[in-house]
């Protein structure tokens, strides 16, 4: 593919979602009641901070969806990690070690997903559906059916709206999302591994015939996604200041929706990091705008539902041209 063509295709891929985001921003900033508040830096900062958890999980989910898989256990995995961080801090571990524990559990759950999918030859939907229940149950078990209060540490500074060294401008959590997004975009587009991921999602059989170890690729992708959920769990703990086993119930659907709105195709082979992030922000700004307007929750649920359908329809339209 010629570079010019390539850039053009990339542009059109994220154009739909991008227009959606601009529309959402434009509409709310034109609302007279909140026009002077909505696009303020303080508000944008807090919306982005609120989106960190979904964004992190969605980075991993993009890879999974590009391979043609799905991970329903993402939100439960996040909750398990969140609880384990609090639990470890209460055991007296130093905060960084507690965070590592959360991250490692996330990776482990992801690894099991990948392992079971490739070894048992069971479709990802079923394996991760099972894992969703197991991780959530494990989180409640560790937390003894309660939330876990943990003493405040520097971990809880990761998600403040006003970070301590002022030159950071935004919370460390947001920086993490930015850096990891760039890395993941490069990984997906510019590396051999990224090509393999896309090949597995486009046509697994052909990929295998071309010499790609598809099972290994999948296990790596699920483990990677698990690590992102673990990281999101740490960020959730940072924000809540408690380990909450019931947190993020149903969030997996928001995560999947973000990827899909951003141009990811559930049949695999398609999806971009930039698109996914735009998908995340469309939903977050909608939620934020509706709250600031004081609109009831059912409005935003209906709107987001409609947007998912519209986004996927758009995606199909684009495909039918190609």
């Amino acid at each position, binding site marked *: 593919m010629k570079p010019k063509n390539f850039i053009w295709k990339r542009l059109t891929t994220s154009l739909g979602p991008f*227009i959606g985001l601009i529309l959402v921003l434009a509409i709310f900033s034109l609302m007279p009641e909140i026009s002077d508040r909505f696009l303020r830096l303080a508000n944008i900062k807090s919306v982005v901070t609120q989106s960190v958890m979904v964004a992190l999980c969605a980075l991993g989910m993009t890879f999974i969806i590009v391979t043609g898989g799905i991970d329903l256990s993402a939100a439960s995995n996040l909750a398990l990690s969140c609880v384990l961080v609090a639990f470890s801090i209460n055991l007296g571990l130093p905060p960084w070690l507690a965070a590592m524990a959360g991250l490692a559990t996330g990776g482990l759950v992801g690894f099991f997903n990948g392992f079971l999918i490739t070894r048992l030859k069971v479709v990802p939907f079923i394996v991760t559906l099972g894992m969703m229940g197991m991780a959530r149950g494990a989180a409640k078990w560790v937390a003894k059916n309660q939330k876990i209060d943990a003493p405040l540490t520097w971990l809880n500074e990761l998600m403040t709206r006003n970070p301590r060294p002022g030159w950071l401008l935004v919370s460390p959590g947001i920086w993490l999302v930015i850096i990891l997004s760039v890395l993941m975009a490069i990984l997906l587009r510019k590396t051999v591994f990224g090509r393999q991921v896309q090949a597995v999602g486009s046509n697994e059989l052909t990929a295998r015939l071309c010499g790609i170890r598809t099972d290994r690729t999948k296990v790596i992708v699920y483990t990677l996604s698990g690590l992102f959920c673990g990281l999101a769990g740490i960020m959730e703990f940072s924000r809540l200041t*408690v380990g909450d086993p019931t947190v993020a119930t149903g969030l997996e659907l928001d995560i999947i929706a973000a990827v899909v709105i951003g141009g990811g195709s559930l049949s695999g082979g398609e999806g971009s990091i930039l698109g996914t992030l735009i998908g995340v922000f469309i939903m977050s700004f909608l939620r934020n705008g509706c709250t600031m307007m004081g609109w009831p929750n059912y409005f935003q649920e209906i709107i987001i539902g409609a947007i998912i359908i519209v986004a996927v329809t758009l995606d199909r339209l684009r495909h039918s041209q190609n």
Partner: protein
Amino acid sequence: MKNSTSAPKILALLVFSFFWLFSCQAKNSGDTSQSGTKKYQLAVIPKGTTHEYWKAVQAGAEKAGKEFGAQIFWKGPQKEDDRAQQITVVEDFINRRVDGIVLAPLDDRALLRPVDEAGQEGIPVVIIDSNLQGENYISFVATDNYQGGVLAARRLAEVLNGQGDIFLIRYLEGSASTTYREEGFLETMIKDYPKINILVKDQYAGTTTETAYQLTENLLSRFPQVDGIFAPNESSTFGACRALQAAGLAGQVKLVGFDSSAKLIQALRANEIQGLVLQDPVNMGYLGVKTLIDYLEQRPVEKRIDTGVKIATPDNMNDPEIKSLLAPDISEYLKQ
């Protein structure tokens, strides 16, 4: 490229028409935007928006809003009982710079930081319903939940004549108000009624009627000998009640619950429920907003305001006082 230009248009049209529709709807439904600007803009943030209980709180808040000339924004977390989303709602209202916030915190600890942030931004916060750690709020307006649990224990023991096997169905992990009710119930039972045997005391009903229904069904098949049940909020009471009705045990197994709704009143009248502990949610919403306005107008406010608990039984349910608590007249303030 013809198709791809029409595609964003469809998206644009759809999104825009939704917003247009909703902004019209929002203008019609709220009686907020009519007579120019109100004196204060206050956010009232419940734990959820679908329970009858919160509708009554909303009615009280709207009543106070009308009386004192304040515009009320009523907004709960998008998913009922989601701590993270409630934090988001508080932050969003801080960014909107409302004049004050009335908050029913889902968690006594997790909501601490957003409330502190509101304080830093000079936005006063009144806590209602469930308590919050820390001191960064101007008043705590709530039911004495422990006392509610004590009343429930006495009533259940009374209808069981002081002996039998019972379930304590808990509500949700980490929910402070219901935990106090459960503790009040449990401690009174253990201390005052040694002949009552508590079969189950650490099962959680979860947030919906459906989950409470399933839990009760499962417990009933495990312990068919049960004589009485206590459930600490509306959804768990109704779930337990439905399970008893479905099993044909309603009235036979005694049920004492918390809060009221049309269905629960019906069951109370039919003697399928023997007691309902009643809070005064309308008064709680009303006092929450009133306290906030008192503070904004620099009148002195109490740090702790009790809104009272009563118990309704099939016998006293027609007393005027109990009646108004059972079915508060909220239609005047809420246009459904």
